[in-house]
């Protein structure tokens, strides 16, 4: 008797055998198609955020920011053409506040390792910020993009150089002329020819600072201007005051050692000149330092109250845009400008320039990208629109022949002043040096001390605070 188990197994085997015999009909083999090339996958693009801080403080200088923004867009196109995996997104700011606050903000950010990638500032910050490790040297990058940087006016590179390395790229420069009111000179009895000849007389050293004070006093005595309106300095602390020191033959830096310098004779004359304009000639009001910028600009740009005043070329644009409702013709009709006159016979006129520079910070995670943005901004087109809008001078040789730059009448007429340029030094201790000199000057202008006392205090303080970092001649 066959067991049930064996019977089941036999039936299962039969079923399997029958099933395996029932194969589906074979699928017809398809005709092979030609191979389709696989597309190369696009590289993954990473957008990196970069930050740039810029400042005027004059409002017309907003292209310091906008040029970087446009440069970033141009850079992105180039990066795409190069097949780079990076694109940049630039966040740029523009401030119109105080220089001191702007620099303090940067300094605190840098110390907290949160500095922006690009910082715009005065060239005098190159020394302390490089010593502090806030910014990086750019020589290698400049060499890499040589074709752009060979176009920079050579005289501007010393302002970017410290301890043999380049730490910054020039953004602009300017001149600080002596302005005069043509209207008031005419009222004083000057002919049109005499007024037109004044810039040339200053250039030849035939019209000195004391000649200017004599004319200002004459204008006050004859009632052409009110007392204290013959000559206005800038109303607050700034480098312009040093133009007088340079005009009397002063120096600030020893070219061989790089040490700071004080020429006692020139500094005494610088102090005495400012004392004389306030107390001897009374052509500058007492207590003038501290006057609001707004009041100063409103008064001088009207050109009917103050006879002589010193300012910057960028002020021309600022007056036009902010104080004269775009009426630049008013300035051409009523205001003239010359170099800063020589201090005395035998000396030369001067021009104090203060180049502003772009720097790449040590906190930047993409320093080459940051540098390339600056490089894209360093071109005649972008720099000229800044120059024309804000009254700053060219930084590129090709810019001087750029049509829009050449068409700008003020830039053309003031451009020669850069040949007479003197600069404040790049030195880590320039800050304390400046504080000591400024304190002495403002004490003299306030009548607190005589020029001779101020000189003694200055020499003593320089020796105490700067030691052998300063040469006193």
């Amino acid at each position, binding site marked *: 008797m066959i067991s049930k188990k064996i019977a089941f197994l036999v039936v299962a085997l039969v079923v399997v055998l029958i099933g395996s015999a029932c194969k589906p009909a074979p699928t017809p083999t398809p005709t092979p198609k030609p191979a389709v090339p696989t597309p190369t996958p696009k590289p993954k693009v990473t957008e990196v955020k970069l930050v740039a801080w810029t400042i005027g403080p004059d409002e017309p200088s907003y292209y310091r920011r906008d040029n970087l923004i446009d440069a970033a867009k141009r850079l992105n196109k180039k990066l795409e053409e190069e097949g780079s995996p990076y694109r940049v997104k630039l966040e740029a700011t523009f401030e119109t506040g105080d220089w001191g606050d702007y620099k303090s903000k940067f300094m605190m950010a840098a*110390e907290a390792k949160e500095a922006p990638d690009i910082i715009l500032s005065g060239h005098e910050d190159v020394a302390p910020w490089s010593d502090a490790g806030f910014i990086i040297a750019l020589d290698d990058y400049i060499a890499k993009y040589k074709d752009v940087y060979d176009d920079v006016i050579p005289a501007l590179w010393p302002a970017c150089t410290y301890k043999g390395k380049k730490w910054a790229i020039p953004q602009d420069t300017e001149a600080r002329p002596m302005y005069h009111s043509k209207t008031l000179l005419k009222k004083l009895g000057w002919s049109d020819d005499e007024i037109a000849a004044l810039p040339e007389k200053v250039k030849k050293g035939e019209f000195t600072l004391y000649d200017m004070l004599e004319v200002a006093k004459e204008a006050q005595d004859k009632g052409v201007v009110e007392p204290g309106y013959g000559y206005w300095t800038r109303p607050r602390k700034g480098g312009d005051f040093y133009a007088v020191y340079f005009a009397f033959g002063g120096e600030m830096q020893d070219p061989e050692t790089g040490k700071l310098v004080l020429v006692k004779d020139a500094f005494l004359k610088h102090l005495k000149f400012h004392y004389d304009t306030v107390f001897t000639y009374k052509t500058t009001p007492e207590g003038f330092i501290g*006057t609001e910028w707004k009041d100063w600009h409103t008064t001088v740009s009207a050109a009917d109250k103050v006879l002589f005043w010193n300012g910057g070329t960028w002020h021309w644009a600022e007056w036009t845009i902010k104080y004269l409702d775009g009426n630049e013709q008013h300035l051409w009709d009523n205001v003239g400008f010359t170099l800063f006159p020589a201090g005395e016979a035998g000396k030369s006129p001067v021009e104090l320039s203060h180049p502003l520079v772009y720097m790449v910070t040590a906190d930047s995670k993409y320093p080459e990208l940051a540098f390339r943005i600056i490089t894209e901004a360093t071109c005649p087109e972008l720099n000229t629109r800044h120059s024309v809008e804000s009254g700053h001078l060219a930084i590129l040789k090709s810019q001087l022949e750029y049509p829009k730059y050449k068409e700008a009448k003020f830039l053309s007429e003031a451009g020669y002043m850069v040949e007479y340029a003197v600069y404040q030094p790049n030195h880590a201790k320039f800050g304390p040096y400046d504080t000591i000199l400024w304190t002495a000057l403002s004490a003299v202008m306030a009548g607190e001390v005589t020029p001779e006392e101020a000189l003694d205090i200055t020499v003593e303080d320089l020796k105490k605070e700067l030691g052998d970092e300063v040469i006193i001649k």
Partner: protein
Amino acid sequence: MKSKSTARAIPLVRVGINIRSLSAKLKSYSPAFMFMSPAVILVMLFYFLPVIVTLWISTTDMSVATFRGYRMIGLANYIRMLTSRWTPRILKNTAFYVIMTLTCFNVGMALVLALLTTHINKKVGMLFRALWLLPRITPSVIYALLWIWATADAPFGIINQLISPLGVEPRNWMMKTPWAVIILANGFVGASFGMIIFTSAIESILPDYLMAAKVDGASTLQTIRYVILPMIKWPILFVLSYQTLSLLASYEYILLLTNGGPGFYTTEVWSLYAFHLALSNYFGNVQFGYGAALAAVLVVIGIITSVIYLKVFRFRELVAEPKIEAL
């Protein structure tokens, strides 16, 4: 004569008793320590530690350029401060600013306002106190701008517009009388603090005392002088000390209004001078070491002033238990 062993045992026993009683005392004070500990920790973190750090920085030549490579220079910053030609000028400015603002407004005007507003109709008093709070609650930059515009030269300044019809020659009041403007601007803000404290103190005086004074025939001025003022001695001490230290350390409105000018250190006070040197400068010259030394001196001046006040106001007597309860 005591044996040596006994002589040795007695101090041990005495020590044992002292340790025990000390331990018992500590245990009884421990709840107090626990309650005070958050405040103590905050004071340590936000006062003592910063003071110690400031003192340490003041013995260095730390600045922007030397921030990562500063040197210890001992007392050189203090010597520089003492030998500086300008230090007496800054000290004089600071003393003038603190004394004038304190006496004319922060304590003086505050007391006057509190006394006046508590002696008139309650609602009217509250309204006046609310108006006096406006300078304090206005953002400082806007407040400063209002003062700059109000004191501006003709034809812009409101002050000129109001008083020139009276024959007063218009001028830029900020430039011509900077101290008056600074003291007024700071005083209007400072008076409200004392006004609130004094008002609260005056209103806390039991009416029985005032009634008793009235019944005895005291005039309002006599009541103020012999009843109210003595009873609010403690709040006056508090406001005086607090406002003195506050004014010594404050420079916000001076910075916004005149920035220490016009001219040469005309309104530069000690704290503003330290700020200019240590934190803000046109050419970025910030000297942390010297600024810290200036700040350290301010701390010392503040402590000395507080001690003087506590002595003058007989602080110990003020906080002692009333004698009548000790009997």
